[in-house]
């Protein structure tokens, strides 16, 4: 059989690519292009009820489906003056841990690790990597189970509703995932050890600005109403427009973000840098052992940060379960008003996700959603530009595409199905 390389598989969730223009050995331009057609979700939900919105917005992304659900819930409930019951809040936190783990497992073990282990250039996969793939599948399968139990479906679950849950997970279901989480801790630790043992190249290093939500009570976590910035500031999520300052660019359908004129990064790396010191247990021990100043300059450490977050999820799931099973199923909280305007945010796997809504007479009149990948795009372009300059000056032109793809992949961007994510145009 003739050997060919398939440039793209037709399993399309999004289209994108990165073009680097090199002229006379100098980088002349970097463009992250998102070709995926605009789906106009924000316009689609106008005139809909908050309940309808909750069913529509998770379709923005099949990986971050529950992050969108949770961010929307936070925005809509705040706008309508609803205080969700404590059990609902804890169960939503649990479902988000499932989604974070699910996304990170796929990204680390099946998408990023091959680069570090030299797999893309190898003819066949090593035995070592085969075991990592299996580990990734096991962690991902468990995470899917958490998502399914809490939301009622593996993808686009409908259980979380405004004011509570349609049905809370049973004690037996919760006990099952608690037990599985405890069993998988060793797998997550071995994953961290592997990620920590890798050589992280320095060809793109430069400091940037990081942002992450500030979880309450000095805890680590993925939910909060304040935004921490590595400049030392803290802003409210209601100020998300000033924080992201979105703009459009001609070469891409995706919007771009800057904060005070500077590109910035959100995601696991930002969370570790801004609130990593709050981690406790084995997760805290790993953070203290592994964290160093290079993390602030090198996006490749996002992979290691994600591996630590997988362990964080596994350590926290049993604690959350213990707290949830103590509580009776509360009634659904009803909205005291039909008008309001507010912003909700959660930390999605790839970073801070904002949902802003204005509701008039019980119908949505304005919606604004700012995704993590849109916030990261300017920094992706920046780091790819730096990396390209450095690799070319070091005479590593033959490894250019792989090196640049490693940088892009570290961000886990929501642009799928590009066989060659980075295209270098040489003149």
């Amino acid at each position: 059989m003739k050997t060919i390389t398939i440039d793209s598989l037709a399993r399309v969730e999004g289209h994108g690519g990165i073009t680097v223009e090199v002229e006379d050995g100098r980088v002349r331009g970097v463009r992250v292009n998102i070709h995926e057609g605009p789906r106009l979700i924000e316009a689609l939900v106008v005139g809909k009820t908050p309940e309808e919105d909750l069913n529509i917005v998770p379709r923005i992304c099949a990986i971050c489906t529950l992050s969108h659900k949770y961010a929307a819930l936070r925005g809509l409930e705040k706008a309508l003056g609803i205080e969700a019951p404590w059990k609902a809040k804890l169960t939503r936190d649990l479902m988000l841990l499932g989604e974070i783990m699910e996304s990170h497992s796929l990204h680390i073990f099946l998408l990023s690790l091959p680069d570090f282990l030299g797999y893309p250039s190898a003819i066949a996969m090593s035995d070592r990597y085969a075991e990592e793939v299996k580990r990734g599948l096991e962690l991902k399968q468990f995470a899917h189970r958490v998502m399914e139990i809490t939301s009622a479906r593996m993808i686009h679950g409908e259980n979380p509703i405004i004011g509570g849950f349609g049905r809370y997970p049973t004690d037996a279901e919760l006990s099952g995932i608690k037990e599985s989480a405890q069993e998988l801790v060793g797998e997550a630790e071995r994953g961290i050890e592997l990620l920590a043992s890798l050589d992280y190249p320095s060809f793109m290093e430069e400091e940037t600005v990081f942002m992450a939500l500030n979880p309450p009570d000095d805890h680590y976590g993925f939910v909060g109403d304040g935004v921490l910035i590595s400049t030392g500031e803290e802003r409210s999520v209601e100020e998300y427009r000033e924080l992201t300052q979105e703009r459009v660019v001609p070469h891409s359908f995706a919007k771009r973000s800057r904060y005070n004129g500077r590109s910035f990064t959100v995601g696991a790396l930002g969370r570790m840098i801004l609130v990593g010191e709050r981690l406790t247990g084995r997760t805290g021990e790993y953070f203290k052992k592994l964290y160093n100043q290079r993390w602030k300059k090198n996006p490749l450490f996002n992979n290691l940060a994600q591996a630590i977050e997988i362990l964080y999820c596994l350590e926290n799931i049993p604690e959350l379960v213990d707290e949830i099973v103590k509580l009776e199923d509360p009634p659904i909280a009803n909205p005291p008003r039909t008008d309001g305007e507010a912003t909700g945010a959660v930390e999605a796997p790839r970073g801070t996700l904002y949902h802003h809504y204005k509701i008039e007479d019980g119908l949505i009149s304005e919606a604004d959603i700012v995704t993590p990948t849109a916030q990261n795009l300017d920094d992706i372009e920046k780091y790819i530009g730096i990396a390209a300059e450095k690799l070319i000056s070091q005479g590593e032109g033959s490894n250019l595409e792989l090196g640049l793809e490693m940088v892009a992949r570290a961000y886990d961007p929501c642009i799928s199905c590009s066989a060659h994510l980075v295209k270098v145009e040489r003149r």
Partner: protein
Amino acid sequence: MKGLNRSLKELVDSRLFVLIGLGNPDRGDDVMGVWVAKKLKNLAPKRVFEEDEGIEGIILDILKRGDVGMILFLDTVDFGGHPGELRLFSRENLSPSIISTHKIPLRPLMELLGKKGKESYLLGVQPRTLDFGSEMSDVVEEISKDLISHLSQVIIGKRKKEGDGT
């Protein structure tokens, strides 16, 4: 389809195979893999799977099973052929660096299966349209029906031969 039919027939005839249909039902011809799997599922529920059942669980289960010798992934693949054209790929034919943040890449899965003594192949159908919200094209539907007819005969034949009620 005759040449491929022969190699496909040899593959599925000689092994205890599992079929996994992949694809996005909202993207025109990309529905093909799951459409075919759905049609065959009742014939052999333990040997035919759809992507939505959770690919990681399906693969981990196959790794534990002693009654699976070969795994056939079925998906639309843009390999530059004519719409509806079929092509069979072994794992060596697939780029290891295919990037998708939403889907598990096939090559590492096929490598893992190979390391555990399970051969796997990707049966690709060249799509005509992948537009969001579009229907499956006539040409891809036609080849899908041929596949269903061919694979159902093989499955029924195996059931009779093995009496395992797959």
